[in-house]
């Protein structure tokens, strides 16, 4: 009888997924959950983008035209929270869900029900967060960094903000546990750690970062909550607390968070460049060490966000030197990508174009990052549009372009059809041109003296703001092309299992579209798949 039950169970697993809403609500399948993460991320990208459009419209010319300062601050705060926690992070988790089991030859994620839960927490968390827009006093307006005492002036939205962050944190921690357990335990038998593809490696490191810092962040916002409602004074000077303590705790989370958003991007780009250069990734092992090094350094540089709060000289010097050090492993990554291209045989399909733009433009963000590390200059740059330019360069043509690159790269594997290459290229060129028109002038604005997070500005800043606003609206509209590419993704020609010209990795050994269940028996690694 026992064998019968097991047989019946096995057979069940081969069935098609349940139809309709139940397939998605109760899904434990890594591919379906990956698709849901990516879809949520795209929706959030457009909601956060709409908020960016409000911000840039208001800033297009001096004077207030559309919104009041209160609402402007709500927009900057919500734009950041939604883009960081709603668009960029879930997109990478979505890519991880889809691709990590395929890349390591695992049948699914190690903890499929937890996987389902970690996804379905997200819509609830963002529901809570978005509902604050309709509350008395409006949405949180104290900036995504939530510095007290200002954030304690938030109205009814305050507990909703805190609880939505708790939920996002729980989701991230569960997702990270799932990825670590999967990568450690479920690799194909011959796949030693150093044989893992770079995307898997960078995600493994990212997952450890998430587990390390998300609880710290949850602790910080909980202290805000008790300061507000339960009479504690962690951060209130009047009760003997220290407002600066929050900034230390926040940035102890916040700086690794920055790498949480960029390490998986490094992984995606490290998959794509070798494929379209028709050459192996240069220095695979040193890429692994560089990523680990960046992750380690991310824990000891947090106070470079705080050079103006009044720290002892020795503290400032320590954080400055540690920050500068990050340039070394990051440089290694960029040099390795260039060396991968060197004497390759390159072709320029859409994923490669996005990956190349990533290398160029992320490097520019890295340069402004190096400038920001120089503490006396940072005192001038801090909280100006120079910083806005810097982090948008590493996040938009950095993280977001890498996500786009990954989406185009693996889309044929997901759908079984080639997307519309012409539209893809158009999307790439429009995005690349507009992203530079938007963010490059912000460097000048910051150097010339425009603070960030202001709804209106002195007339000397008018020209560059107008240019940035035109660019932003162009960038926003360009993303509609991406939606069109996705909607018509199944209309293209059918693709083979390999999709591209001899790409390396196990994901290209399964049919396209990838069937609902893959690698039910572990694969053997062969040198044809890039394993030696």
């Amino acid at each position, binding site marked *: 009888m026992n064998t019968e039950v097991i047989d019946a169970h096995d057979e069940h697993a081969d069935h098609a997924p349940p139809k309709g809403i139940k397939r998605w609500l109760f899904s434990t399948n890594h591919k379906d959950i990956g698709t849901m993460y990516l879809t949520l991320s795209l929706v959030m990208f457009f909601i956060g983008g709409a908020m960016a459009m409000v911000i840039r419209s208001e800033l297009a010319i001096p004077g207030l035209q559309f919104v009041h300062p209160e609402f402007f601050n709500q927009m900057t705060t919500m734009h950041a929270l939604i883009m960081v926690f709603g668009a960029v992070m879930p997109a990478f988790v979505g890519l991880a869900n889809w691709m990590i089991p395929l890349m390591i030859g695992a049948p699914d994620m190690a903890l499929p029900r937890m996987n389902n839960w970690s996804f379905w927490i997200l819509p609830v968390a963002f529901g809570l967060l978005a509902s604050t827009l309709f509350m008395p006093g409006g949405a949180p307006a104290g900036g995504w960094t939530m510095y007290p005492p200002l954030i304690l002036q938030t109205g009814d939205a305050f507990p909703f903000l805190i609880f939505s962050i708790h939920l996002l944190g729980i989701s991230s921690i569960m997702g990270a546990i799932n990825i670590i357990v999967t990568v450690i335990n479920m690799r194909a038998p011959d796949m030693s750690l150093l044989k893992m593809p770079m995307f898997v490696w960078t995600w493994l490191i990212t997952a450890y970062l998430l587990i390390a810092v998300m609880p710290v962040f949850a602790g910080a916002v909980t202290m805000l909550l008790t300061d507000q409602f339960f009479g504690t004074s962690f951060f209130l000077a009047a009760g003997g607390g220290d407002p600066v303590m929050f900034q230390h705790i926040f940035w102890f989370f916040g700086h690794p968070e920055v790498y949480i958003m960029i390490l998986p991007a490094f992984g995606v780009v490290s998959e794509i460049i070798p494929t379209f250069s028709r050459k192996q990734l240069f220095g695979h092992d040193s890429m692994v060490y560089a990523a680990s090094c960046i992750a380690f350094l991310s824990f000891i540089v947090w106070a470079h966000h705080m050079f103006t709060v009044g720290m002892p000289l020795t503290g400032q010097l320590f954080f400055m030197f540690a920050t*500068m050090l990050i340039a070394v492993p990051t440089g290694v990554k960029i040099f390795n990508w260039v060396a991968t291209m060197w004497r390759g045989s390159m072709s320029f399909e859409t994923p490669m174009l996005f990956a190349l733009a990533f290398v160029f433009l992320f490097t520019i963000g890295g340069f402004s990052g190096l400038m920001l590390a120089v503490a006396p200059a940072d005192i001038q740059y801090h909280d100006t549009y120079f910083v806005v330019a810097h982090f948008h360069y590493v996040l938009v043509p950095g993280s977001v372009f890498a996500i786009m690159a990954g989406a185009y790269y693996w889309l044929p594997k997901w759908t079984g059809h080639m997307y519309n290459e012409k539209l893809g290229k158009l999307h790439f060129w429009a995005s690349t041109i507009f992203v530079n028109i938007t963010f490059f002038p912000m460097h000048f604005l910051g150097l010339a003296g425009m603070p960030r*997070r202001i709804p209106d500005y002195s007339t000397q800043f008018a020209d560059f703001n107008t240019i940035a606003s035109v660019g932003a609206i162009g960038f926003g509209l360009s993303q509609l092309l991406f939606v069109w590419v996705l909607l018509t993704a199944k209309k293209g020609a059918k693709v083979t299992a390999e999709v591209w010209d001899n790409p390396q990795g196990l994901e290209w050994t399964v049919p396209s579209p990838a069937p609902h269940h893959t690698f039910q028996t572990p694969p053997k690694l062969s040198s044809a798949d890039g394993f030696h």
Partner: protein
Amino acid sequence: MIRKSFLSALGLLLACTANAEWALNMPKGVTDLSLETYNLHMLVFWWCVAIGIVVFGVMIFSLIKHRKSKGAESASFSHSTTAEVIWTAIPVIILILISIPTAETMVKIEDSRNPDMSIVVTAYQWKWHYKYQDSNIEFYSSLARSSMAARPKESGVDPFSVDNYLLEVDNPVVVPRGSKIRLLFTSNDVIHSWWMPELSIKKDAIPGIVNEAWFIANESGTYRGQCAELCGKDHGYMPIVVEVVEPEAFDAWVNSHDAEQ
């Protein structure tokens, strides 16, 4: 192809901003330390340009030469310890070259000993309060009426018609040229940040904490800055104006203040 997009973006920028070149860079300022800061900024900038030329140069060369459509065959190398040691060592050397002068400047910035005069700056939502220590001079400094009238939505006033729109105050801080002025910052409510680009000072004003900064202005003149830390709805409307005057004019200003009271 990438390069083209770069050039077109850059070209567009330059075309639009040819007549606004003065606002492209950090000001050199009017103190020794602001000039040092500017020089550090330019030092790192030129290092970045140099590294950029090399890295982007190699990459663009590769993008042009090593493409499949030109019949390039891919090589099979996948690592080179020599190359990796070189491109780890060179950045380290560059960083050391940058960090030595930077550390020197930081030591000077933190040396606020023996000031000639101290001013206590207290931040409020959304104005500044200045108290000259060892004297009875104290006053609030808020956004000027001309900007106040123009700032609301549908005010009907064109911001371009207002002198120093959003950068003018009712009561500026007046300090003598050539004296070492120490500023002590604190806040009455939330965190603010006192930023004066020409003096190269940006320091947070934090409730319960007293921060300090100092400057010696070498040139007289009127200098403008703003609050730099988000402090609520009117964060964009709390400018700072410092008037550096000759020592005699400063004494006259102090006397006129005493006479008023």
